[in-house]
């Protein structure tokens, strides 16, 4: 039985968050930039070692250090029920959450040991508001990409903001994090069950965007495309759609996820992917019924019209 694994990303204060989630039965893998020992006892320390399966290709980059660290964390006498992989967004060499997620999903050795449960990103809204006020970029690219694939955004110090600034930060986060529930512990208590055991990478994807979102807010942001169709799809055409989605957009895709129904098949098929990795399997039928077919794609510079046309061909 595989252990659930959650990616937790953040900047300053990440060590305190990790100490909070490092309960018995939870293994923590943390970079050396996060203070060990005092705040995260027993954590497995890692130093980012990134390598691409095809030299020079960004869409197949993996974290070799994580593969070894996850094996060490899981292959124990008492196997952890949950593993947390910490990403320090302030450490440039290791702030790439998408590469971490790609590694966890695509590596065959890790696929035997762990199952991705979710991505949690902690943000400091006071820092965001301050950057905006002084004219600095509100979010760095690593932060944008982390939020773009996040399932939960933890907003710390929300009570330190004026209502007007809090509203602006809220709007920013909802625009940047299409798959995430935004949680502010200062306003509403957040429990462990809100962050772990969410199984967010399988089944109908949670999303809160309109049909298409273009870059806005003065920031260059990834595009999110939402594709819906009621009624079964031609299975060969659906396969072709996903093939073209991945092969044509691998370096740009940050995350895609969806459920589809093929003509003649029983039940829906769940699909998800990151960059050049894609996976599908029968969907559990105890989730949100929703539309028959729903695919959400987030990536940089997507040709939205082409994606919509390709999907329409699969529905014909």
């Amino acid at each position, binding site marked *: 039985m595989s252990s659930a694994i959650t990616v937790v990303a953040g900047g300053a204060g990440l060590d305190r968050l990790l100490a909070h989630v490092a309960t018995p039965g939870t293994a923590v893998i943390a970079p050396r930039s996060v203070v060990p020992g005092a705040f995260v006892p027993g954590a497995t320390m890692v130093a980012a070692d990134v390598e691409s399966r*095809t030299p*020079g290709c960004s869409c197949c980059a993996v974290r070799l250090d994580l593969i070894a660290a996850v094996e060490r964390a899981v*292959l124990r006498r008492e196997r952890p029920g949950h593993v947390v992989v910490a990403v320090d967004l302030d450490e440039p060499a290791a702030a790439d959450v998408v590469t971490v997620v790609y590694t966890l999903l695509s590596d065959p*050795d890790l696929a035997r040991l762990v199952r991705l449960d979710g991505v949690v990103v902690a943000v400091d809204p006071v820092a965001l508001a301050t950057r905006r006020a002084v004219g600095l970029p509100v979010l760095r690219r690593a932060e944008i990409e982390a939020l773009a694939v996040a399932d939960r955004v933890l907003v710390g110090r929300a009570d330190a903001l004026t209502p007007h600034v809090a509203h602006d930060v809220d709007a920013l986060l909802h625009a940047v994090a299409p798959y995430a529930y935004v949680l502010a512990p200062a306003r509403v208590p957040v429990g462990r069950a809100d962050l772990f055991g969410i199984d967010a990478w399988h089944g109908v994807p949670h999303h809160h965007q309109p049909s298409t979102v273009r870059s806005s807010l003065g920031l260059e942001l990834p595009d999110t495309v939402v594709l819906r169709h009621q009624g079964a799809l031609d299975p060969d055409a659906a396969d072709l759609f996903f093939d073209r989605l991945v092969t044509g957009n691998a370096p740009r895709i940050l995350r895609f996820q969806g459920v589809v129904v093929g003509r003649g098949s029983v039940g829906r098929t769940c699909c998800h992917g990151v960059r050049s990795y894609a996976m599908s399997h029968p969907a559990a039928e105890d989730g949100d019924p929703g539309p028959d077919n729903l695919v959400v794609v987030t990536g940089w510079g997507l040709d939205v019209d082409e994606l919509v046309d390709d999907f329409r061909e699969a529905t014909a």
Partner: protein
Amino acid sequence: MSTAPLLTEVDSEWRTELADGLRSIAWSPGGRLVAVDAAGVVLIDRPEQRSTPVGPDPIAATWLGDRRVLVADAAIGVVSVGGGCERLGRVASCLVGSGRTVVAGCADELVVWRVDARDVVTVESRCGRVRAIAPITSTLWAVAGADGVSVVDVALDAADVVVEIPGALTVAAHPGVDFVAASDVSGTVHLIPLGGGVAGAELDGYPDRVRRLGWVAGVTAQLVAVADDELTWWQVSEAAGAADQPVTVVAHESAITALAVDASGMVVSGDAGGGVRLWSPLLPDRPVWAAELGAPVTAVAWSRDGDRMVVGCGDGSLVRFRVFPGSIA
């Protein structure tokens, strides 16, 4: 006078349980055993001889001579055990011993301990951040790093061979073989000649990276490579290089997680389901012995004389076997 059996026989000598999953097992030249578990407990020679934890996250243990053990811990660096416990610092990604010499890969350097020297020597890897090392002799070491593969004489601090291989991952070497084998993240195994006048080769077709390699020395050497649940055996000769096609065996029912080759060429492999298989170079297409240990195999090691092998598992099980290689298989 005892004679070798026709078929390989294996007897279990003892089985014990450590506090946590096994991380590393090694034998000294004189036949002493060390095993370290995930809790940092070090077992020396016998089940009842155990240390208190020496570190929170050990990754490898090995002997320096017959009296001192070095343990590489991912959190606190290299620790010396024997006559007390001494932290030597330097966080290592890998640690391997050849008997009289121990080499650790620390960032883009090799840190060298010698049994007959007080001082620790540091030499440049010549291939970037070190990922794996393998001894050829006590002073000549093959190194796989982020930039490629090198063969470094750690006594002279000189490189005999430096080859650029993007994504080099693991390396295997043998004093009786004229090649070093290295795998990369793309799934290619590179044969790098040690002598002049011989061409290297790239062995590809693997669907994913090859994480484990071993050499069986002989008149014609064989390179053993692990891919998921399969073993591939490549015949390699100095004159002809690598054979066009390997012998491929679906060796286990689940992914192979450990591999070791002894001096006589016997190969032991372990898998994610707890299966252990013994392979003879005389009969590469089927195991000569098998056992089921019930937990993922995490470490295997042969004694220097090939008489014994020890297998460790993720549940803390540690089993020592006496092996009698057969004359037929």
